């Protein structure tokens, strides 16, 4: 796909990225990408490819370093690309961290294309999975993940500002934009259905200012009519069209009914599974003696969906309830549904609030804390974190909630959830030793979320932040704890000798030091001298390749392989001080001028121009002016001789002509005529 990227300088600030509709003109140029891969070859290739896409690239070869970069520069990157298999940290772990802490889109890469690994990427929340070797085409389009995510965030922020229920409900809109992969059938993806429900609700509920249709409020009466119609038809046979007919409500559309039906079905299904769990919980919550609520058990179950559908319960909170209930992985059925009189639920407002009060008193803080997950006031991830942190001020939250009738409902419904949710979470995530009541919900939740199948990329991006960030404080700790214990296991098992550890540590150094500059500097083959980095020396010492002997750094001489003698780069690199000078006098375009080597590129150009302008004056002695070591050009040999020798070598075997030519620069005086 042709992005039509304009070759504009990619120094767009992050601010421009976050503008309303997100996208500045030179987009996607300037996209700030962080690439993490322990393989230096792949890393280099990726870097070049990304640069060719006009992205701003930062590379690192260790996950810890990557995390450090990300943490130190919270808004410094737009997207992360990471290899799956890394010595210091599993790529999926990094993925989780990034999702939790920075909430950036992460693309996973691997040479492994087996389904389970790809699935793992998906479940951990990767927004894409690339198979190595990565092609340019695959990288060109990564910007879409950034836009998608930003679109979400933007909309969420927009919603917060408005602060109305409608806005809140509208927050669910983004998912539909992002729902490009309907993962309804994926393994653990029960959410997806809920998502669709929410989306539908959002569509229905949305304010006229944003939406096409007027909001349908499923009032008690309306819902009763609906239920009646459904029962009449039989739940299995109830189709929206018929229900609509039976209900005979003017202005109600088939779509309204359809989505409501969906939710109702889900609710019923959940009820049947939940009944065991619930009873104890439900009753404890159902205590409130509020008259308006009437007998709790008058209805066999609360239609959570109905609640949501009724408009009293913002779709978003429904989503959060569903999602929060660990939704993803677990157990729709495990979500406790309060046994509240359905009718009563619909008669909102004050009675509800009172009910909530009662509920609150019954719940301990720990449970309330987890309720905050669902508080729809702030669906923004950061907001949720704030909510989490303000758990103590739940009362104030409640006050806030009171002001919004619909939200009180969500609190209501959510309040009953946490305990079982926490239980479920704990059960599900037995491996996570997070049994603190107050934190149980969140950390487990957040871990469950990434571990569960976070199938749909776009949706996930919306959901995940909502939950993972809330648990940020504790989870980060947990992760790091678990990480530290895992490190020994994950440590590069290949590091079996000092050479390799030198290699990895030096590679790290390389990453840190060389990331910016000296790109043009090319390490030689094992055989050839590579003086630019000492580590190569280490490697070579241990390199026992029969064909390619280890070379001595110092003398800069070529290997037995004659062809090496011809490579000017060898000579230069062997004589370089900084490792950045790579301008053989005779090469013009062929000179490898590194990106950051402005100086040498000038030199190269000087050389080229001087070659052209004044060939007769080009002598070896001129070159030292450029700062190259004198020895570089001290030897003279005929161009002709060189060519002949090389050709001979090409045709024949390996002739020891290295002595003839050495590794020094060409002497241009004897140009063949």
């Amino acid at each position, binding site marked *: 796909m042709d992005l039509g990227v304009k070759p504009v300088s990619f120094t767009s600030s992050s601010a421009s990225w976050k503008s309303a509709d997100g996208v500045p003109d030179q987009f996607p140029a300037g996209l700030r990408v962080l690439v993490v891969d322990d393989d230096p070859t792949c890393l280099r290739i990726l870097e070049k490819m990304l640069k060719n896409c006009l992205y701003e690239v930062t590379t690192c070869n260790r996950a810890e370093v990557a995390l450090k970069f990300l943490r130190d520069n919270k808004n410094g990157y737009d997207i992360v690309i990471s290899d799956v298999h890394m010595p210091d940290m599993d790529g999926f772990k990094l993925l989780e961290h990034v999702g939790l802490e920075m909430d950036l889109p992460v693309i996973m890469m691997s040479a492994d294309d087996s389904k389970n690994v790809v699935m793992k990427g998906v479940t951990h929340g990767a927004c894409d999975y690339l198979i190595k070797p990565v092609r340019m085409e695959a990288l060109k389009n990564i910007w879409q993940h950034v836009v998608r995510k930003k679109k979400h965030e933007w909309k969420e922020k927009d919603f917060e500002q408005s602060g109305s229920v409608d806005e809140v409900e509208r927050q669910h809109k983004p998912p539909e934009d992002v729902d490009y992969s309907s993962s309804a059938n994926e393994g653990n993806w029960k959410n997806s259905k809920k998502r669709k429900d929410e989306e539908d609700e959002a569509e229905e509920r949305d304010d006229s200012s944003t939406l096409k249709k007027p909001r349908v409020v499923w009032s008690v009466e309306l819902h009763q009519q609906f239920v009646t119609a459904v029962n009449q038809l039989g739940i299995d046979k109830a189709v929206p069209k018929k229900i609509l007919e039976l209900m005979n409500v003017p202005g109600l559309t088939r779509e309204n009914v359809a989505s409501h039906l969906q939710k109702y079905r889900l609710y019923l299904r959940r009820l049947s599974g939940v009944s065991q769990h619930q009873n104890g919980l439900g009753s404890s919550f159902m205590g409130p003696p509020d008259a308006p609520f009437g007998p709790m058990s008058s209805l066999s179950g609360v239609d959570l969906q109905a609640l949501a559908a009724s408009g009293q319960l913002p779709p978003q909170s429904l989503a959060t309830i569903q999602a929060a209930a660990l939704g993803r992985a677990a157990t729709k059925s495990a979500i406790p549904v309060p046994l509240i009189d359905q009718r009563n639920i619909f008669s909102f407002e004050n009675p509800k609030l009172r009910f909530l009060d009662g509920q609150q008193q019954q719940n301990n803080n720990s449970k309330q804390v987890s309720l905050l997950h669902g508080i729809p006031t702030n669906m923004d991830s950061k907001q949720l974190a704030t909510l989490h942190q303000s758990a103590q001020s739940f009362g104030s939250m409640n006050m806030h909630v009171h002001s919004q009738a619909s939200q009180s409902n969500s609190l209501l419904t959510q309040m009953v959830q946490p305990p079982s949710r926490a239980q479920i979470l704990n059960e599900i995530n037995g491996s996570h030793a997070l049994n603190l009541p107050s934190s149980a919900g969140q950390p487990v939740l957040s871990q469950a979320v990434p571990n569960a199948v976070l199938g749909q990329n776009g949706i996930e991006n919306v959901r995940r932040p909502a939950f993972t960030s809330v648990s940020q404080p504790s989870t980060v700790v947990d992760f790091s704890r678990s990480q530290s214990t895992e490190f020994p296991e994950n440590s590069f098992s290949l590091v079996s000798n000092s050479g390799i550890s030198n290699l990895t540590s030096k590679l790290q150094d390389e990453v840190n030091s060389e990331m910016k500059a000296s790109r043009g500097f090319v390490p030689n083959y094992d055989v050839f001298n590579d003086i630019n980095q000492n580590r190569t020396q280490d490697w070579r010492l241990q390199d026992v390749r029969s064909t390619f002997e280890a070379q001595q750094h110092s003398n800069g001489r070529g290997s037995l392989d004659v062809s090496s003698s011809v490579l000017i780069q060898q000579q230069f690199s062997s004589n370089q001080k900084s490792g950045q000078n790579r301008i053989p006098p005779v090469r013009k375009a*062929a000179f490898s001028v590194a990106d950051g080597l402005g100086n040498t590129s000038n030199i190269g150009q000087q050389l080229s121009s001087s070659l052209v302008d004044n060939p007769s004056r080009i002598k070896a002695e001129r070159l030292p002016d450029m700062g190259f070591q004198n020895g570089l050009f001290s030897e003279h040999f005929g161009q002709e001789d060189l060519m002949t020798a090389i050709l001979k070598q090409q045709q024949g075997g390996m002739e020891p002509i290295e002595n003839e030519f050495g590794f020094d620069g060409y002497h241009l005086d004897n140009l063949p*005529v």
Partner: protein
Amino acid sequence: MEGHQLQHQAACMRKALFDQGYLDDQFLQLEDLEDEANPNFVEEVVKLYYSDSARFIRNIELTLDKNPFDFEKLDDIMHQFKGSSSSIGAKKLKTECTQFQEYCKIGNFEGCMRTFQEVKQEHAVLKKKLESYFQVFLLVHVYNCVYVCVDVHFVTN
């Protein structure tokens, strides 16, 4: 000295590398990445690969020597090596790596040993071929530069 001859030679070598299955599309991707700022990108990457990949070979040898039946580890190392090799478009080498991994999966030590020799062989052969190729490539450039200089020389004198 015929520059055309050199160029022709370079082109033939390149074609042979592809025709004989040493290189695949990924190499083309690398070539596409070359530009004025990075005129020797392919060579640079190949060199980087060869200086890095030695450790994989080494590690497999060590493992075969010390923990010969640690197939998981062998497979793991080979997986990384394969990933690296595939990134420069080393087709034949990649095939041998896959074969090695197959033997690892079924726990066939003999098969692993045999295939590993193939891997080493392919690794070395490709290295030589690429080195030769780059040299000729370089010569073409050298020749072109020299040629230009000669021309100018004659023009100015």
